[in-house]
């Protein structure tokens, strides 16, 4: 399950980063729409896989995993159009952190 999480998190981080740089501002709205749907599906799986890892680690690990799983929705709660760039890079950073955290968890076990 950790491998699934790491793969999904890597794909999500990459698509958000690439999307921000090359896709989201494109004028081809159909392509942007399809790309955004793909990212949304990755967010769904990222959260589900993070929750599925709750059976590993101690109490503090479980709290962190829950926060990682909910991070897209917590960030979504506070995001605004003016601060979209900041929150996007924050989301990107949190996904990278979650990957490091899960790798650490893997070695700890």
């Amino acid at each position, binding site marked *: 399950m950790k491998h699934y999480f790491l793969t999904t998190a890597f794909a999500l981080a990459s698509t958000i980063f690439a999307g921000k740089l090359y896709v*989201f501002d494109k004028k081809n*709205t159909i392509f942007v729409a399809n790309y*955004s*749907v793909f990212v949304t599906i990755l967010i769904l799986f990222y959260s589900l896989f993070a929750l599925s890892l709750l059976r590993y680690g101690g109490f503090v690990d479980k709290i962190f995993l829950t926060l990682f799983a909910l991070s897209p929705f917590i960030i*979504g709660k506070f995001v605004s159009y003016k601060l979209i760039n900041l929150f996007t890079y924050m989301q990107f950073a949190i996904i990278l952190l979650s990957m490091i955290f899960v790798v650490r968890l893997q070695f700890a076990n």
Partner: protein
Amino acid sequence: MSHDFELIGREKSKIAVLLFHGLTGSPFELKKYGLYLHSQGFDVYSYSLPGHGHNIRDIKAVKYSDWLNCAFAQFERLTAKYEQVFVSGLCLGAVLCLAIAEKYGKKVAGVLTLSTTLYLDGWRMPWYSFLLPIGLSTIMRYYYIYPECEPYGIKNEKTRKVIKKLLEKSEVAADNFPMSCIYELLKLSALVRKNLYKVTSPIVIIHSVEDDLASKKSAEEVYKKVNSTQKDLILLNDSYHMLLYDNEKEFVYQISSQFIKSQINIKNDSKINILNLNLGV
């Protein structure tokens, strides 16, 4: 480019109709409807809602409270000038009409809602619409754009071609829906749904059974929950979402005009009754 209009008669009218356009639309979509109502003797007003009418990027920064405040301000301005003010709107505009009726109660002479969008559950919704709650709750709501596509809310194929060309030029409305404004519409709809019981003004709800954006569930819920003593639900069979441009547009115009006239007559009748009571008749 602004499509705002004010249709004011030469003789001072006591009746005003305030029209609200739909999501990503403009008052252009209400122009013919407004002209018809004006020809029936009413003063008609319609203005662009915040975030509409200029750059599509503007709409991403708008909150539903901006639309509400704008609608309330326009209504209050007209109530200071006219004896009776009717409100009518399409899609988002219909939801705003309900919000006005909830806030101002009997001050609203009558409400005409067209293609009320309390839920986005029409048959044109894409296969991935089940992902909407996730998209709306994350940063993706500022990136996802739902492209306007066939049938553009119009069943009549000739009209559809014309609207498609206009949309491509982005002259009269945006050719896509940013998810952030769908998010704001759904938040507004949830608020309006909660307070529907406060609506007591006479109301006519017009909706198409084949509406491609919002199924008739929205109209039925309004009909069921409002507390108006006079309420009518009219379901059309030969139109999609854009009722004012589709096959039954003349019927919609006529029903609207008849409804407003009937409310003026009722008000006049009640004046006569009060006079009779005072005279002890």
